[in-house]
């Protein structure tokens, strides 16, 4: 048998998803639904509902808005290019820029789509069409390239030292350098267990 309080919750009508906390979200969603229902031409009586106050609430309920397919009417090509820009401003999530010595253009890689350093190594190899970058991440001393990254503090660190989760949170951009150039670069020293 359930407690009285829980029973009450179950029988209460709600607009939100089950299990979600109630009042604020419900009010916002109601605001939007009411807007739809009173939108048909009537003005004077319902103007209280359709006033500035409710309009503010609507702006705060992205869940209701983003469910509308194909709205706003921005063509899909533009949406894709728009999204990319939004992502690159976030640190640690989504796309970071990758430069490689000797290659005249920058690429971008989605850190979020890799699970660990192996994945990242593979993705970098594919990105530049060069094998061996990945090896650098795993097997430090044996190959031509080193992969370094700029962290949140602006320091350049060798990729592969810190746990993956910490890495993707702090990585702002990546650079693939020739090992020979790296020695004088001023990398932050590795951890104690080196």
């Amino acid at each position, binding site marked *: 048998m359930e407690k009285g309080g829980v029973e009450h919750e179950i029988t209460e009508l709600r607009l939100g998803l089950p299990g979600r906390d109630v009042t604020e979200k419900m009010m916002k969603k109601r605001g939007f639904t009411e*807007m*739809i229902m009173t*939108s*048909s*031409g009537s*003005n004077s009586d319902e*103007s209280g509902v*359709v*006033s*500035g106050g409710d*309009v503010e609430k*609507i*702006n*705060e309920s*992205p869940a209701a*808005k*983003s469910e*509308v*397919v*194909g*709205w*706003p*009417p*921005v*063509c*899909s*090509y*533009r*949406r894709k*290019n*728009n999204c990319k*820009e*939004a992502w690159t401003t976030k640190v640690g999530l989504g796309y970071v820029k990758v*430069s490689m010595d000797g290659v*005249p*253009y*920058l690429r971008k890689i989605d850190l979020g789509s890799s699970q660990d350093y192996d994945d990242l190594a593979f993705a970098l190899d594919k990105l530049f*069409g060069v094998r061996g970058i990945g090896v650098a991440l795993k097997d430090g001393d044996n190959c031509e390239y080193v992969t370094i990254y700029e962290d949140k503090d602006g320091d350049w660190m060798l990729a592969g030292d810190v746990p993956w989760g910490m890495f993707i949170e702090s990585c702002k951009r990546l650079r693939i350098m020739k090992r020979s150039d790296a020695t004088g670069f001023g990398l932050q020293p590795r951890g104690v267990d080196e």
Partner: protein
Amino acid sequence: MNYFPDEVIEHVFDFVTSHKDRNSISLVCKSWFKIERYSRQNVFIGNCYSISPERLLRRFPCFKSLTLKGKPHFADFNLVPHGWGGFVQPWIEALARSRVGLEELRLKRMVVTDEGLELLSRSFVNFKSLVLVSCEGFSTDGLASIASNCRHLRDLDLQENEIDDHRGQWLSCFPETCTSVVTLNFACLEGETNLVALERLVARSPNLRSLKLNRAVPLDALARLMACAPQIVDLGVGSYEDEQDSESCLKLQAAIRKCTSLRSLSGFLEAAPHCLSAFHPVCHNLTSLNLSYAAEIHGSHLIKLIEHCKKLQRLWILDSIGDKGLEVVASTCKELQELRVFPTDLHGGGNTAVTEDGLVAISAGCPKLHSILYFCQQMTNAALITVARNCPNFIRFRLCILEPHKPDHVTSQPLDEGFGAIVQACKNLKRLSVSGLLTDQVFLYIGMFATQLEMLSIAFAGDTDKGMLYVLNGCKKMRKLEIRDSPFGDAALLADVNKYETMRSLWMSSCEVTLGGCKRLARKAPWLNVEIINENDNNRMEENGYEGRQKVDKLYLYRTVVGTRVDAPPFVWIL
């Protein structure tokens, strides 16, 4: 005129180039019909399913240029499921089999394949110009065929297509003997570009006028390219990032100074705003500026750039320009004819970047303005009435208030009066998109005043069937009507079936039309294709014996002389 020999009449017809006029000429008499038929150079087909390639060739055996459009406009917003149609393959095959000397092919919203491009490139010796807009289904391999086989290629213009980039060497497929390129636009390609091949191609193309690069072309390559092509008129900058050094910037500045013919600038897909000043020397000649993909250019860099562009006629920008920025545009760009302001934040994050004030400022400052596309968070009737008074010359007026059903934010009234003022003042209005809170009243105004209106886009508007009826009865020149999420149903749909013969197409999605209504329409009008698009059910509607009362999710109907199309996928039911 009948006393003149055919050659003379044909010579006169050569001066008539508009499709509408040529269509009118062909209706005068049999003799003119025949002469016009054989002398028609450019054929425009607004709906590829309205006619077949065989019939096209029977009527116009000698054309050189073909424009074809496939999917309906709302396909741009993902409302048309993948696989719906618009395949160009049968067209290319039919044209290849015939003896037509095709020189130019322009496609919009069609499905193109690599095989099709290969066939195209091999079948027409004088093929010169390929323009693909919002197409999909092909890869850079198809581009390689075009580059390799079209000896006289003049234009390769790829606008906003979905192209599978195999990172191949399509640019190096242009033979060394190819020196005829005038337009090269590959901005929509996502992959890397063979910069060496590109530079060599540009260097050997003295007639190159339009060059639009993709993201993979960095700043220093841009400088070298511009140095090779100082005659350039239209430039799409690719990646404008300056990671390396300011030497690239200096080289770029020097190259840009020599480009005295530059009139149109676009791109900046990645951007280093501080390098924008390199373009200031040429800004005073610019007539067209498209920064709508340059999210990183805003604020003072953007304003400084615009302040130099006094001759601008066309401006595409993001709403991060703000009302203040639009005021700068209004006071600087007195020649402005077309303005498009796109939203940066698609989820309406509450940042009121541009409002009705920006729109009013533009209307007050730019007397030549005739086309506008404006995305904003809020609008008022008063502002729209002012805009109508300031700019009675609008031909295209598209206003998109990001939030559906949003009323006048000051008075909380519907925006009927505002849009009413627009259609009443703008006697030449051909295209209109409405948004915000709207009742049937706005459609009464549209039907009454918008006598030249050819295309109308409606979303989340209206109360009853009367709204749609006002439009269908009033707008005699209506060609394309597209409606979504509005309460119009069978009564409006069926009121005047013959109206649809005068229109290219009608789209209605998430409205109140029922299956029964659509079936009745199809029976009354056999010269229409009435398509029910129901991707969820995959055409099980028919098998499950759906009731006539069942609402139809997506309806697309269009006039056609060739009956039901044979390439429809299972989720499209043609009644």
